[in-house]
């Protein structure tokens, strides 16, 4: 299928559709929004596939530069188009990830982390295959919600109020029924906080503690998928963490005593804690309070010279976000914060730059799941969203408080 749009634009367009449907006459159309959420999910799958592809490709390039060829066999080239994706998915402009200098410094760590990603992706593909063969009624909307919520989840400040990543559901969780998705409500999470916190070091205020997974390392991913975390109260409500892929701190002690890298399999966020600072790979995390406000750290400096997009509305959105309240921004005390590594996008779609910056904003909004879409907030002062994606995001942020009070009043 020839398609002029890439996954990024599709996500942006879809989110805009969902947002504008809230103000359309006659109320929210459930059917249309459901279909749009399917497109979101599909686009996200492709997006993530491309990300992994890029990650591996960079690693391979570094391998070739530094190591003798015998290392390459460890990183087999995977077909990164998710099964069922259009054949020319790989033709979409690849994404470049920032922080080249950093990656070299952490090369041995990165190699291990890539290995984990490899396992993760295999698991991903396996599950998708399983999905296609056994189309069990699964929660695509939750998947879509994860799709939209998972991307910037690595952004430290944005969702720090989350009760861990317990709120998020795996995208293909046929055996897992995640709990109710209300990431913006800091309510009681079904899972005990320590376990999720250990697995999801998203909270920048607890970097060291968060990076210590409690799972035994080296567990094979397929078996992990079938098991639930031992600390969860009920198997049926387990969020399905893939604990096996988490490296133990001891693995890294040999290479780099000041670093710990963890991979959150739910959100596919790779987090490295180094010297008390937090580096994070953010999916589409163009919006990050730390990046927007703080001085560019080592991660960004190297990227400054490369192709990257600075979004003019960034500062405005940060202001809005502070007003929104629930989105925690900087850690208390304004501790120095290593900025997020931004995903850099090739300049093949220049018109989408305002959209790209707002994806993460809208993504965090719609992380409240499908129920958030269904219930419409009484807001007579809300003007119809302009076509500009940037302002759309601003409005979405402004009404964020309303979303958290979403009630499915049926």
């Amino acid at each position, binding site marked *: *299928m020839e398609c002029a749009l890439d996954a990024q634009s*599709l996500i942006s367009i879809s989110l805009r559709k969902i947002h504008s449907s809230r103000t359309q006459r006659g*109320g929210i*159309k459930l*059917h249309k929004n459901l279909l749009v959420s399917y*497109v979101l999910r599909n686009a996200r799958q492709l997006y993530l596939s491309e990300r992994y592809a890029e990650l591996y490709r960079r690693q391979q390039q570094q391998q070739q530069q530094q190591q003798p060829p015998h290392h390459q066999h460890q990183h087999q080239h995977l077909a990164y188009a998710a099964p069922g994706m*259009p054949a020319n998915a790989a033709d979409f402009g690849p994404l470049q990830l920032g922080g080249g200098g950093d990656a070299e410094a952490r090369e041995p760590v990165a190699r291990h982390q890539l290995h984990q990603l490899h396992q993760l992706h295999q698991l991903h593909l396996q599950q998708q295959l399983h999905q296609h063969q056994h189309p069990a009624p699964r929660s695509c*909307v939750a998947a879509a919600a994860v799709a939209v919520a998972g991307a910037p989840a690595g952004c430290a400040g944005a969702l720090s109020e989350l009760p861990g990543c317990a709120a998020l559901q795996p995208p293909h969780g046929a055996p897992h029924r995640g709990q109710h998705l209300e990431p913006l409500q800091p309510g009681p999470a079904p899972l005990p906080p320590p376990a999720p916190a250990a697995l999801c070091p998203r909270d920048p205020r607890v970097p060291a503690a968060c990076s210590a997974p409690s799972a035994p390392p080296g567990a094979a991913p397929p078996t992990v998928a079938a098991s639930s975390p031992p600390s969860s109260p009920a198997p049926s409500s387990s969020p399905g963490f893939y604990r096996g892929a988490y490296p133990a701190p001891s693995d890294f002690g040999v290479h780099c005593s000041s670093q710990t890298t963890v991979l959150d399999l739910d959100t596919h966020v790779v987090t490295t804690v180094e010297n008390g600072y937090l580096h994070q790979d953010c999916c589409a995390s163009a919006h990050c309070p730390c990046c927007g406000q703080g001085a560019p750290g080592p991660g960004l400096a190297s990227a400054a010279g490369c192709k990257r997009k600075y979004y003019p509305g960034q500062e405005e959105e940060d202001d809005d976000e502070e007003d929104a309240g629930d989105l925690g921004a900087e850690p208390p005390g304004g501790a120095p914060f290593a900025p997020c590594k931004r995903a850099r996008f090739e300049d093949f779609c220049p018109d989408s730059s305002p959209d790209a910056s707002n994806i993460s904003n809208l993504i965090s909004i719609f992380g409240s799941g499908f129920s958030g879409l269904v219930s419409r907030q009484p807001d007579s002062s809300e003007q119809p969203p302009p076509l500009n994606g940037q302002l759309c995001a601003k409005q979405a942020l402004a009404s964020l408080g309303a979303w958290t009070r979403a009630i*499915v*009043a049926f």
Partner: protein
Amino acid sequence: MPSVLLSQADIISTVEFNHTGELLATGDKGGRVVIFQREPESKNAPHSQGEYDVYSTFQSHEPEFDYLKSLEIEEKINKIKWLPQQNAAHSLLSTNDKTIKLWKITERDKRPEGYNLKDEEGKLKDLSTVTSLQVPVLKPMDLMVEVSPRRIFANGHTYHINSISVNSDCETYMSADDLRINLWHLAITDRSFNIVDIKPANMEDLTEVITASEFHPHHCNLFVYSSSKGSLRLCDMRAAALCDKHSKLFEEPEDPSNRSFFSEIISSVSDVKFSHSGRYMLTRDYLTVKVWDLNMEARPIETYQVHDYLRSKLCSLYESDCIFDKFECAWNGSDSVIMTGAYNNFFRMFDRNTKRDVTLEASRESSKPRAVLKPRRVCVGGKRRRDDISVDSLDFTKKILHTAWHPAENIIAIAATNNLYIFQDKVNSDMH
């Protein structure tokens, strides 16, 4: 060609013949219903045989506001269904997103004259002038069509009603919204029975919605509903009070080679219609129409491509929201031909026996009286004939979503935005 300002309210949103084909009802976005009546064919005026003229116009629904949910309820008429005629009056059900109304249409062509106490204008007479008694007599008058709402079935649906269907028992009917189907009695407005409920306990788990539903034409216990995932469920009301468990599930496995971002959207069924015989079902999704045999659940027995050339344009159709257009489909009276609409004011007919299909256009130029519709063709590359339309020059704002076929004759009603076209096949008036 001068462009005419199109009033949104005039856009036709549903078209339906009654059971004899004598009446044709249309509903529009402004909540109005217009009923056309077929003029009886007469030897005196052979030119106007069988033409449809306006019979009655009335405002069925008004815009409402749900204060509890802060929701505006559109007045657009989603569906009209005629009740079988049981006396001199005609009755129909019309529905918007939330409320179904039963309308009674009666004719008055006589009026009593010669009252004793009132004069012609209705004023009371001066009793002193009354010298004798007279019996009022009925005198003919100009035909007056009166429409009155007999029942209002409100507050039965939380989500948007997408279809209604009158049961063959002529006593009950069902209404379906995105997640639930209710069974009503035509005489009882204050309660209804919920017979299908696919709302998940957790709305996060929502994966599909109900898109259309219809009662079987002969078996009053059977009905079918279609889903956004492309499946059909046949339910038997004798089996259980709540028909969440289907009796039959009609589903075609997806072709993995056709997978795209939009696979879920284009597989969503927008309309389902039983054949007149009751043996088959017709479904419409974005690119195809399919005929299903009630005895075979695994796959449709026939699939017809309506506009497969759009398969490569799904991206732009998604952007423009056209991919969400809900096309309807129709059987002819003998179930031998099926019809559905498309873009550029084209509509398509497929002959199930000869396997021939034709594309026709509903436009002012091609619709002069007694003009023969010329078949159209969309060229998709390759050699192009003179009158072909290329895919890129299709007008996607001109869409034919609603079509209807006379129950007995070769007369079709095509709704093209705000215009209604009625085409008759004089040569082949009888069904074959």
